[in-house]
């Protein structure tokens, strides 16, 4: 992906890397304007309202950060898979199971003290997601079966599994678990930054940023990460160099699943303090858009997650004037336009001397 860009100087390269995503966002907003016009509203007014409300007020910013948090995790998850040449479409299921596991541990051991309980919840979320990512990982490594189809199938299996297990653990006549113990709560950010008052943003955001740093260090500073990227870029050459393709593919999907699973603590430990069916709300799929727009780099992923977080909350703000589904349309357009724009840019670069 970066090979054609290597021939140009460093500064120009950074610009080129960002040019595709920025152009894609601009084009998507432009296409979205047509939908706003079709409803009989004024695009600039609507976009102005959207961005002012979701960035300009403390509460709005907090809401945007809250919406961005799971996307950081799922974006990292999808991008880590991409780095190994694998497409993890299962982040939605992994996120769901991660949240479910965190809630089961947090409620089951409700009386435990925070220094024990909180790490256990986080661990449970990562383990559940990692396990769910490990299944397609092992199938890919051992049998070569396609991870795309397997991760799609495992999403649905995860949803059914949670429903089934839910008969035992859901509160009567609901689709939510019992409340987790106080020791499992992640503090709200408004306790530290009063300006965010009332917004659900919480320390899961900090966990997400730490995860981004860790993924960056792993990918670009560790030997394992190098091997993983080598398998993604040129599996044949990597294997010739003594790197196991299968082991790295399995590892990539385990880590990818674990990252997505961790995202569950944002809702469960940081916000509602219970698991509720459907809480993932598509964050696993938007993670694909985040990874694409972030060009599979942790810094890019965080930036893209913030952008989609802003859109996510902004949709609710404009809902009185334009259906909030405009945001879903924008997210989809960003995906479709980004992959086309990237193709066009790559092709232009290949033609450069």
């Amino acid at each position, binding site marked *: 992906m970066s090979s054609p860009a290597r021939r140009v100087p460093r500064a120009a390269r950074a610009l080129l890397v960002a040019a595709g995503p920025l152009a894609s966002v601009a084009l998507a907003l432009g296409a979205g304007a047509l939908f706003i016009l079709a409803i009989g509203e004024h695009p600039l007014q609507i976009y102005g309202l959207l961005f002012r409300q979701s960035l300009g007020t403390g509460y709005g910013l907090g809401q945007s950060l809250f919406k961005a948090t799971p996307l950081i995790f799922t974006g990292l998850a999808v991008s880590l898979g991409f780095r190994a040449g694998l497409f993890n479409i299962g982040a939605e299921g992994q996120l769901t199971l991660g949240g479910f596991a965190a809630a089961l541990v947090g409620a089951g051991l409700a009386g435990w003290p925070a220094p024990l309980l909180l790490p256990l919840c986080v661990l449970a979320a990562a383990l559940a997601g990692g396990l769910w990512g490990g299944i397609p990982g092992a199938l890919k490594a051992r049998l070569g079966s396609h991870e795309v189809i397997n991760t799609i199938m495992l999403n649905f299996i995860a949803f059914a599994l949670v429903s089934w297990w839910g008969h035992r653990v859901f509160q009567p006549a609901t689709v939510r678990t019992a409340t987790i113990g106080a020791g499992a709560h992640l503090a709200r950010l408004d306790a530290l930054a009063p300006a965010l008052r009332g917004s659900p943003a919480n320390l899961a955001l900090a966990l997400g940023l730490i995860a981004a740093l860790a993924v960056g260090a792993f990918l670009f500073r560790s030997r394992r990460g190098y091997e993983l990227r080598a398998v993604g870029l040129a599996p044949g050459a990597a294997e010739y160099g003594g790197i196991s393709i299968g082991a790295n593919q399995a590892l990539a999907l385990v880590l990818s699943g674990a990252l997505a699973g961790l995202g569950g603590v944002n809702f469960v430990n940081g916000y509602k303090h219970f698991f509720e069916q459907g809480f993932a709300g598509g964050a696993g799929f938007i993670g694909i858009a985040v990874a694409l727009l972030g060009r599979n780099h942790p810094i890019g992923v965080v930036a893209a997650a913030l952008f989609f977080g802003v859109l996510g909350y902004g949709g609710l703000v404009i809902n009185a004037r334009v259906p909030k589904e405009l945001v879903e349309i924008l997210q989809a357009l960003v995906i*479709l336009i980004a992959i086309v724009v990237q193709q066009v840019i790559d092709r232009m670069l290949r033609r450069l001397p």
Partner: protein
Amino acid sequence: MSEALLFLAAALRISVPYTLAALGASINERGGVINIALEGMMLHGALAYTLGAFWTGSAWAGVAAAVLAGALTGALHALVTVRFRADQITSGLGINLLAAGLTKFVLKAVFGSSSNSSRVVGLPEWHVPGLSDLPALGPVLSSPLVLLTIALVLAGHWLLFRSVFGLRLRSIGERPAAAATLGLSVPLYRTLGLLISGALAGLAGAWLASEQHSFTDGMTGGRGYIAIAAMIVGKWSPLGAAAACLLFGAAEALQIALQGSAFPNELLQMLPYLVTMLALAGFIGRAVAPAAIGVPYDPEEHA
């Protein structure tokens, strides 16, 4: 005996949308393009049926609109993946997200609700001498779309494996460069495959909306993904896919039959997905995709 027939009738009815969508995917994927977009094509088809039937009062106008909307969605997938050679899986997912948002957006704009449309007409029943009078199976075989689906599966199988078009399409899915050397246009055949697939998935959407007499938000409920599963289990062949759809339809009919019993329904819900994973892993025969699937065809690479 008649209970078994009633069960078969229920399974057949449930399997109609799966079969139509899986049939289309078997055809277009044989040309080498992955089609994860079935869900979105179906959703567009369902909304278009509802709008067509709502505005004209005619179910058949709804069907025509659904087929058109599905084909247009296929054209979008072709534009992104064939014309611009972008990643096929990502494009499919993007189209599904687009359909989820767009259908709700239009629903709100036209019907003032993002959850459901007004009531529209459904397709009429036909009295087919012989078929309609069969015990248990009569009613389902009186439905024009059920009959059409059966005919389309047979026609699709013939198209793919007995016609010149099918031979060419399959050769493009296996060795696009070789096919291009013989003078075949890879983009043209792949686009045609996607148009056919989109039209059929749109028809599947029409069936759903016609049965329900309305459009509801997200009404395809993952059926597009089950159709992909059926296509894989059926090994990219229309007849195989149709058989897999009937199996999945039977699993769903069983869920309905067992509702309220102690048997956990969720386990039956998982069945299509588990069977697909087993088929992919090689435990149920081998499900092998066309050789060039997922690879954008770039003539410059073969120049």
